[in-house]
């Protein structure tokens, strides 16, 4: 059996995590940093209980041993091999994949693969219909039985304001746009693909955010990966948060700038990096940096934490850096007007140099935008990779964004936007409070609609997903490599479309499964939250 570095890599990773800050420090922030925050900023990341950590390592160790065993059996043809094979004619080519690259995929991911990529056949709203699939060979292949699991409560889709719907004003407007414009565009923005719909959308987005101008792109991921290289280049410095999304990391890498990483949401770490960068300049030559760009996200989707925006802006002003704020999850979901994390903290949108976000989550469409000063948007119109080489946004999608944005702003003549924003924040508070009371460990800010609930042990990842599906609730579970190896979690996304009954059903099921799988690890009392008027008593 060839040496399998990835198996031992898992063990070493686990040992490193043993000493990681999450494990050793208790992290319960209630910050009122000198009046920068208008209301208390409460985030909790309860430490991993020692026994749980030990059992988790043991679990991974056993799985790794079994992985080696199974690979050995597969190599010696004792066990049937389901893995796809190279062509006969190309057997003497350099192998496309190294065996050890896929150790984790073959031996751990495959066992619980049925928790991901579940196909759905309805609107991804508060309730959805799942396509039933079975596997006869332990998840190597799936078959659709032809049946549909109806009315599964959807706790996994990013549908914060409930705009994923096929009826109503937005859908009607999108249908009209499809009838008029068709589905595609067939050209780039700079050539023949700039439709009047795009101009209308950009004006509206700029008004919504409170900035001078904005520009819309066809894909949220590509917005980051194609515009960060246009803004920075060689001789610039990018300071990126530890837990930034893959698109931000890719954009930073493609730009060619130097990248330095600061600890997640840690302002001391960021300040230290800023000071060192300005004082010492570029490495070796000590020339001053051309510009410094700070990359942060509004809500971090794996942790549920909200960026400490007032402090970041204070630092940015003090050290003359530029701020790039990626509001993929927070636009529409935070703030009294749904205008994102800037609105939530009551800050001035002009303080953020580049406001980026996506339309996929709260607006029920697809695509991304960048907003800021007019010079910035003019520059992007001429120099963005997307404007020159990539097809522009599809017209019905643009129309859906226009309709939903007007609804949120209250310009469609109804109160629907305000009601939904209110419902979302009520749902978030209620859900988080109940989970705390039940004794689960949940991470993140108390106002964030993304609720990660810790599972830790690898077996519980698969068990939780399956047990919840049996009770007709669709949840998302995440493990390594999206999270640190012992911090696997289930992640709930609260939506304004969830009614109180749905949340109660979900909570009962979660509690049941939690008792069954022994997930109630928390040893803290519910931290005392400020009394809020809208929390009506329910029992």
């Amino acid at each position, binding site marked *: 059996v060839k040496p399998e570095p990835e198996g031992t890599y898992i063990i070493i990773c686990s040992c490193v995590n043993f000493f990681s800050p999450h494990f050793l420090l208790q992290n319960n922030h209630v910050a009122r940093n000198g009046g920068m925050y208008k209301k208390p900023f409460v985030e909790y990341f309860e430490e991993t209980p020692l026994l749980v950590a030990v059992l988790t390592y043991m679990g991974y160790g056993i799985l790794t041993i079994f992985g080696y065993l199974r690979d050995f059996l597969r190599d010696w043809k004792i066990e049937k091999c389901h893995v796809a094979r190279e062509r006969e004619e190309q057997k003497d080519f350099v*192998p496309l994949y190294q065996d050890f690259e896929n150790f984790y995929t073959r031996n751990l991911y495959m066992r619980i693969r049925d928790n991901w*990529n579940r196909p759905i056949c309805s609107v*991804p709203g508060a309730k959805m219909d799942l396509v039933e699939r079975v596997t006869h060979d332990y998840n190597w292949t799936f078959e659709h039985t032809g049946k549909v699991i109806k009315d599964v409560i959807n706790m996994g889709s990013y549908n914060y304001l409930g705009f994923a719907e096929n009826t109503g004003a937005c859908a009607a407007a999108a249908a009209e746009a499809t009838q008029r*414009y068709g589905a*595609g565009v067939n050209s780039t923005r700079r050539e023949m693909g700039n*439709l009047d719909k795009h101009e209308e959308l950009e004006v509206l987005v700029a008004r919504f955010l409170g900035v001078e101008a904005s520009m819309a792109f066809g894909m949220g*991921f*590509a917005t980051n990966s194609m515009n960060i290289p246009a803004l920075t280049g060689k001789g610039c410095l990018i300071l990126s948060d530890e837990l930034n999304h893959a*698109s931000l990391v890719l954009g930073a890498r493609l730009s060619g700038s130097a990248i330095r990483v600061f600890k997640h949401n840690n302002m001391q770490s960021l300040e230290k990096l800023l000071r060192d960068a300005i004082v010492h300049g570029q490495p070796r030559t000590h020339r001053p940096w051309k510009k410094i760009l700070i990359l942060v996200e509004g809500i971090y989707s794996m942790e549920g934490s909200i960026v400490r925006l007032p402090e970041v802006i204070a630092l940015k002003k003090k050290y003359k850096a530029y701020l790039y704020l990626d509001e993929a999850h927070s636009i529409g979901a935070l703030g009294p007007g749904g205008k994102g994390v800037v609105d939530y903290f009551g800050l001035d949108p002009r303080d953020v140099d580049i406001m980026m976000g996506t339309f996929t989550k709260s607006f029920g469409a697809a695509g991304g935008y960048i907003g800021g000063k007019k010079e910035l948007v003019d520059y992007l119109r001429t120099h963005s990779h997307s404007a020159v080489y990539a097809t522009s946004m599809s017209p019905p999608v643009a129309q859906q964004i226009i309709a939903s944005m007007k609804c949120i702003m209250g310009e469609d003549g109804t109160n629907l936007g305000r009601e939904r924003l209110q419902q979302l924040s009520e749902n978030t508070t209620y859900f988080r409070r109940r989970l705390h009371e039940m004794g689960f460990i949940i991470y993140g800010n108390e106002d964030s609609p993304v609720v990660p609930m810790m599972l830790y042990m690898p077996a519980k990842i698969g068990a939780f997903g399956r047990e919840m599906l049996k009770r007709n609730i669709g949840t998302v579970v995440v493990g390594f490599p999206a999270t640190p190896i012992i911090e696997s979690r289930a992640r709930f996304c609260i939506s304004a479309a969830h009614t109180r009954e749905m949340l109660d059903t979900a909570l009962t099921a979660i509690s049941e499964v939690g008792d069954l799988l022994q997930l109630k690890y928390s040893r803290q009392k519910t931290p005392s939250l400020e009394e809020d008027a809208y929390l009506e008593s329910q029992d």
Partner: protein
Amino acid sequence: KMASGQQWVLVEMVQAFYEAPAYHLILEGILILWIVRLLFSKTYKLQERSDLTDKEKEELIEEWQPEPLVPQVSKDHPSLKYDVVSGPPSHKIIVNGKECINFASFNFLGLLDNERVKVCALASLQKYGVGTCGPRGFYGTFDVHLELEERLAKFMRTEEAIIYSYGFATIASAIPAYSKRGDIVFVDEAACFSIQKGLQASRSVIKYFKHNDMEDLERLLKEQEVEDQKNPRKARVTRRFIVVEGLYINTADVCPLPELVNLKYKYKVRIFLEESMSFGVLGEHGRGVTEHFDVNIDDIDLISANMENAVASIGGFCCGRSFVIDHQRLSGQGYCFSASLPPMLAAAAIEALNIMENDPDIFTILREKCRHVHKSLQGIPGLKVVGEPFAPALHLQLERSSGSRETDMKMLPQHLLVCFQCLDRQIAVTQARYLDKEEKFLPSPSIRVVVTIEQTEVEIEKAANCIREAALAILK
């Protein structure tokens, strides 16, 4: 009990363990744990030891002035104002308020305003809404996506297909999924921008060969072979790829696929083929350049195409054998970390595929029209037609290219003026747009002329005359 110089026997060691005092064992244990911790703790890069005082540091921070975030863009920058299309970019397109005949959108098969496609998209909208609200892994996989993937695989006669939600991201995510640091990629100089970005993201060694020059490619491959013999161990784990386009978007000609396949087996290199312009155009049934040259599709490791040209939808796909394609489901960045394609656009693509399968005559008709346009545009004073006669997206370049990039760039405004004149006379053509500073091998300035199946002979004549007059007037 230390027996110096003698060999320790296991039993004696265990005995020593039992007899040692407790504090000794505890101390040893702590020391071992400490060593382990030191070994695994983060190494801190030693910042250059500076003897700067705090006051000096504050002064440096005060003095430092960054560049402005973006350089000023002059008000009359040629690309600042976009042409605004009111209404759908269909055959009769309204540009800047004027109705023109569309020679600029890549709507080769005229499927953009096809009623059947619109009806299917609407039906899908009524069932699923617009957005998918999640990536493929988290309830963003719809049965429509699975159906589209199956249909594409069946159409192209491969084992499996995978779809992406954005055409640009397709090849830009596919290449880095397979080619990593230390691997070698041989790529044509005329490769499009998305391929270049994919290569940049992959961090592999890139070797460019002259456009469509198989001898140059063979020379590079031979050089690599010589290198390999110097270090056979490294050569055994270095993957090699050739990345070419079926029909190049920058030069409108085809790659010599049969020769490439020969080179593939001779030098053991894998081929990635980008077919955005040739999918739905070349080949008897529109299957692309493999059908055009009658090459076995299994000989190509990966075919990638976007659905934004002939298929008139949004997104892209990769197809090939399951062994190759399945890897992208966990390693394709644009697939795993991005929301999936809106179902109505996938439904529109399925209907477009239906039309393509039911009616293979459209490809022949399209190629006839291409030949017609190619012929009509010959003989324009000052401009030459670049591209194969059957290519649907042609370029009109300066007849006498001076060979230097600067002089050619000075002719850019004149190209723009030609386009404006044509727009005035109700023919919509556009200048081919590039990012001057970002392209590795910047193509010469040119005017893009696109052939679609909806253009009539009369319109083609009119367009040719219009361009001729404009060229005469401006390029004199």
